[in-house]
């Protein structure tokens, strides 16, 4: 009997605690908003910059974090009004593999910590981006949402807030032109550089490291399913791979051209654009970056060459000639040797019988 009442007591107590906590949670938001709901709330940094401290309740309600309360993230605030320095929100509190609160089950934070951004931030570089710099704060939306900072159409802008020169180059590119036209297969920053795995292009781990560029471009440009849809040839990757540049880079050559050496990096344009680095009249200058004294001869002939195709011109005929010369040499030699052995065999037999 005593045990039973004990159990009931526990239940009642637990229930009451739960209700209290829920009530506190429900209260947490409006309480914070007493101050932070005011549009005029701001503080002045030591640098003199004025930072708004206004929080738009609607933003949070429409974000992936709808239903969370302020103190879920701002966990160092335990009293109102709060005193002292408020810590930056640490997203890894929830965003780790195995979290019980329903955040994506991924260890993205670990990847980020190894990235050029994460390493710089950990080293104390205050300009290095942390999660919030790219993903936003109260209004984080899923990447598919056109309003998300992580939506394909907004990524260049998001990265461009820090990478200004690259952003302005990129906006001239055929990739951005296609993205604007709604061709979501086209590349934005993250398609080449990666997302949480971004490395400096000087790091051999980087997808934009000199020897890894062909592989990175090939993800789309060797795929009929991606670029093929838009009538872009996919064989350019293979023809590059067979060229001296392609072979040398595959085996670690760092002084040969990769895709970007000729086509440009952020401002890649179609080859028929007079401003393109591979526009026929610009080819001498582009090749001249490595080949001193490059002249108009460099533009006379195909660059992405497939010797097995008739459009390769003389190269096709030379290649065809040697194919048949090799075959006929092989047949001729084997026949010549075979006949020689055949006679010896027969002669040996005759000699043996007699």
């Amino acid at each position: 009997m005593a045990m039973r009442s004990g159990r009931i007591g526990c239940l009642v107590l637990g229930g009451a605690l739960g209700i209290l906590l829920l009530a506190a949670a429900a209260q947490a938001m409006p309480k914070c908003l007493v101050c932070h709901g005011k549009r005029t709330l701001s503080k002045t940094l030591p640098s003199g910059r004025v930072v708004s401290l206004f929080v738009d309740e609607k933003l949070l309600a429409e974000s992936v974090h709808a239903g969370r309360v302020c103190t879920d993230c701002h966990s160092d605030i335990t009293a109102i009004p709060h005193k002292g320095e408020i810590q930056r929100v640490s997203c890894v509190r929830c965003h780790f593999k195995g979290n019980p609160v329903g955040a994506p089950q991924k260890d993205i934070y670990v990847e980020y910590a190894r990235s050029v951004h994460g390493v710089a931030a950990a080293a104390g570089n205050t300009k290095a981006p942390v999660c919030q710099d790219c993903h936003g704060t109260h209004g984080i939306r899923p990447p598919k949402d056109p309003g998300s900072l992580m939506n394909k159409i907004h990524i260049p802008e998001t990265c461009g807030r820090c990478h200004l020169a690259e952003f302005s180059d990129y906006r001239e590119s055929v990739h951005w032109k296609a993205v604007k036209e709604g061709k979501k297969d086209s590349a934005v920053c993250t398609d080449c550089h990666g997302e949480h795995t971004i490395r400096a292009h000087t790091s051999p781990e980087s997808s934009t490291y000199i020897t890894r560029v062909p592989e990175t471009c090939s993800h789309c440009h060797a795929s009929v399913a991606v670029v093929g849809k838009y009538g872009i040839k996919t064989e350019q990757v293979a023809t590059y791979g067979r060229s001296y540049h392609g072979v040398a880079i595959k085996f670690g050559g760092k002084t040969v051209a990769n895709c970007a050496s000729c086509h440009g990096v952020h401002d890649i344009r179609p080859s028929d654009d007079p401003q393109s680095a591979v526009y026929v009249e610009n080819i001498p200058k582009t090749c001249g970056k490595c080949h001193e004294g490059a002249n108009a001869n460099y533009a006379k002939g195909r660059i992405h060459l497939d010797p097995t195709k008739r459009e390769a011109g003389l190269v096709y005929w030379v290649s065809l000639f040697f194919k048949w010369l090799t075959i006929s040499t092989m047949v001729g030699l084997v026949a010549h040797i075979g006949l020689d052995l055949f006679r010896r065999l027969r002669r040996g037999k005759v000699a043996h019988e007699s």
Partner: protein
Amino acid sequence: MASTGGRGAEVQRFTLNERLQHGVLMVSTLVLLLSGFSLLFHDLWIGRWLLWLEGGIAGRGLIHRWAAGLLMGLCGYHLLYILFTARGHQQFMEMRPRWRDVRDFVQVMRLNLGRPAARPAFDRFDYRQKFQYSAIFLASSTMILSGLALWFASEAMAVMPKWLFDALAVLHGGESVVIFLVLFVWHLYDVHLRPEVFPMDWSWITGRIRVADLQERHPMEYERLRQAGVIDGDAQR
């Protein structure tokens, strides 16, 4: 000149100078083929293995160019040898293809097929040896010229359009395979695997040939040497 050794009387066939020329040609060609095939067959295991062996793409290039330098030096020397030395000039004249060689070839084919034909009497060089020498002459000159264009690419591209340069690159690779076949299938059969020379025709090292072999394989030369008194026609048997 004829000397009697353990294997029967022998006669000088190649001078030391000629044997050294052959040695340099052999070494440079082998190295050129190996360091070239590592590039040509880079997508096969054999090419990747060769490339690894040769110290990667840069090491391979260096080896190829050194061997090319050796071959070019040899070819230059050989030209001087056949132009300005009596011995060299005489050997070159013996190497010239003649109509006789075509006739010899047809006769050998008839014999091999079991048709009635007289055994052709070869001179100092038979039609196979002449063909192989001519092939090497042609192959070396085209490979050296196209190779120089690839070596000095910037200089070459200053005077030739890219399509010609590309064609030379394809020629350089395509021809190397034909050279490989002629050397490894035909020449090696001739000097190693043919039953009468197996396991090896030693004359490329010793410079000598047995008088009996000379009579068998180069009867016209044998006859000439015998009449000139270089060989004692009866002593060697």
